[in-house]
């Protein structure tokens, strides 16, 4: 199928392009920008007047809930949500049931996703068997099966010797290690940021030290082992400071933040709003503002949805008994635009965090940009259109988000995956 996207504002952060021009797509690839290639006859023309034409978004963390949690969501429902959100590539954390610790399982997941023919999936393998932090997974085989990195999702490795060995082993092959900084004992029994809000509500707290203690350990072990460390879901200004220091010492470490932590803080828990029950916990307004600034200046490398669909039954519970997480695939773009607006960031900078910068972290080279020859994963959106997030507007099976009822900018009009129009509105 040959597609021509006409008159859109093409924003391609990877190549610092931001201008109104046409995009030509054939055989699943971008074939040209601006001038039509010789003899190009479009079978479909998409008018993009007033719209932004961007690379398809890349999400560093989206739980699609298969296998094991199909009652909460399925690959089908969540990949539909990805399409509606303009997300064309998703990295999948390994905390499925069973965990992504088996090459056969990863192959099956990739096969199922391919058959559904929507967003590309990039599984993140379990660093240890069943995420138990005891025995190493078959990393080499898992990579062959399709894994792009290794992580423990939100499960800790209590035994630091195992963690060091796991990082060493991953470093043997140059595999990426993605770790969530949460020290297990300091997290135990806690449900919210240990601050005035948790104290007032009587919610057992998780101190910032839970993040910094773990982060310090990870940084030291990465230095000792040469592992390629990526820190997931940073939550605090103190944690950020440790990353800054490590970089000043010459370490090559990357990190990301979730859309929730970029915009929300512990105050948003209000009267026990379980949509704000998240891992890591939402921290203070000061932490939130520090994260938002660091994402703007690039000290935080990427923004992700941390998509975690949870059914109503597990959210309509007392805060401490509810399940953590929020749906996010369809909010990634709107919340990126909201953040960009607040910080007066050019689209080129804002979109980089969810396209080219994210692609680099996952190791995607043929997508995340719009150069001729690239995979034609494209997100066309109306930056001016505002819409109210509601249960009905969400395609994800999870209706759990703190942003329900909020009016946000940015509406996806077309999503193309490998040159196929998968979503239009």
């Amino acid at each position, binding site marked *: 199928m040959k597609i021509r996207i006409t008159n859109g504002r093409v924003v391609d952060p990877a190549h610092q392009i931001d201008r109104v021009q046409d995009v030509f797509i054939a055989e699943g690839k971008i074939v040209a920008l601006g001038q039509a290639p010789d003899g190009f006859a479009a079978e479909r023309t998409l008018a993009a007047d007033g719209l932004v034409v961007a690379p398809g978004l890349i999400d560093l963390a989206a739980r699609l809930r298969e296998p094991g949690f199909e009652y909460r969501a399925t690959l089908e429902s969540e990949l539909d949500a990805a399409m509606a959100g303009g997300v064309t590539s998703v990295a999948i954390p390994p905390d499925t049931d069973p965990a992504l610790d088996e090459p056969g399982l990863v192959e099956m997941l990739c096969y199922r996703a391919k058959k559904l023919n929507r967003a590309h999936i990039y599984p993140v393998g379990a660093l240890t068997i069943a995420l138990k932090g005891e025995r190493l997974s078959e990393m080499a085989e898992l990579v062959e099966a399709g894994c792009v990195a290794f992580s423990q999702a939100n499960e800790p490795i209590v035994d630091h010797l195992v963690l060091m060995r796991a990082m060493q082993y991953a470093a043997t092959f140059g595999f990426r290690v993605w770790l969530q900084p949460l020290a297990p004992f300091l997290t135990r029994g806690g449900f919210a940021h240990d601050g005035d809000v948790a104290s007032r509500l009587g919610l057992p707290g998780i101190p910032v030290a839970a993040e910094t203690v773990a982060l310090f350990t990870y940084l030291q072990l990465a230095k000792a082992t040469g592992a390629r460390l990526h820190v997931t879901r940073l939550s605090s200004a103190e944690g950020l400071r440790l990353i800054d220091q490590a970089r000043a010492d010459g370490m090559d470490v990357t990190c990301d933040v979730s859309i929730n932590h970029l915009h929300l803080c512990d105050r948003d828990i209000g009267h026990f709003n379980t949509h704000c029950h998240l891992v890591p916990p939402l921290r203070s307004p000061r932490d939130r503002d520090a994260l938002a600034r660091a994402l703007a200046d690039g000290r935080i490398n990427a923004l992700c949805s941390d998509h975690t669909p949870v059914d109503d039954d597990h959210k309509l519970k007392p805060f401490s*008994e509810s399940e953590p997480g929020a749906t996010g695939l369809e909010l990634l773009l709107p919340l990126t635009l909201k953040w960009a607006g607040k910080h007066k960031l050019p689209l080129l900078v804002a979109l980089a965090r969810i396209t080219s910068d994210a692609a680099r972290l996952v190791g995607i080279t043929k997508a995340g940009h719009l150069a001729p020859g690239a995979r034609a994963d494209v997100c066309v959106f109306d930056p001016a259109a505002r819409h109210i997030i509601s249960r009905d507007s969400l395609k994800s099976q999870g209706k759990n988000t703190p942003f329900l009822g909020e009016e946000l900018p940015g509406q996806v009009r077309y999503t193309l995956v490998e040159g196929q129009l998968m979503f239009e509105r």
Partner: protein
Amino acid sequence: MHNPQLNRHGELQHLLTLDGLPREVIVSILDHAAPFTEVAEREVKKLPLLRGKSIFNLFFENSTRTRTTFEIAAKRLTADVVNLNVSTSSTAKGESLLDTIDNLCAMHADMFVVRHAASGAPVLIAQHLLATGRDHIHVINAGDGRHAHPTQGLLDMYTIRHYKRDFGNLIVAIVGDVLHSRVARSQIAALGTLGVPEIRVIAPKTLLPTAIETMGVRTFNDMREGLRGVDVVMMLRLQNERMAGALLPTPQEYYKVWGLTPEKLELAKPDAIVMHPGPLNRGIEIDSAVADGAQAVILPQVTFGIAVRMAVMSMLAGQ
């Protein structure tokens, strides 16, 4: 998510927490409670204010004392009382909290008195009733996790008002395990709202919540310093499971440093009163000589507790 305890007209719909409850509402509850103290002294201890109303005592956490005081309060108002010890019934079979509530609503409950181990559980129930349009049903929080125990806080305010008359010139010290205490949180909220100029909390650092100063209190780790010149000493109960481990080394050391002895009480004003929400751990947080002494008002607290609960119930559901 807002706090549903006040309705659109600012009237009390549920009693969930004292944090943020307007001063007029608190004072009005205390005023309502006063005449109920006399009912207990009559030969026939009953008023027909809640005749025909069904009150469900829903205790997801074991408690005999609080449940009994609510039961007595309801019965003195002629309500029908159903006691459900939920920790041994349906939730043990996997039923969710809101399913339990829906079932009891179908049995035409008029009021739930809820105790739950999780902070915010009664708030969730009230939000659910609001969302499902059942605003004729009321919820009273009888203690949720570490969050709130509003009727205890109110009966404490009633007791202080009874003995001290005016809140505007008092120094009040709260002593003990503030971290795990819903009672302390309700007391701090009410004392602040009622205009007590100085609220102190006295405890080891392991038993103080983070950033507690933001609730408008002064913290003291040294008990002697904290007790100096106070008008009211509110002791908190130290739960057995906190007494040894990483929070405190031993009950003996706790008693030595933070136990209220006659000698430490001498640092307070001579007419200071000593309160305790019960049950007492004699020889751990309080010395028997103090608990049974002239300054203790611990038993009057229990008596006032019934009147205050009658006041709350009748204000919520009375004709």
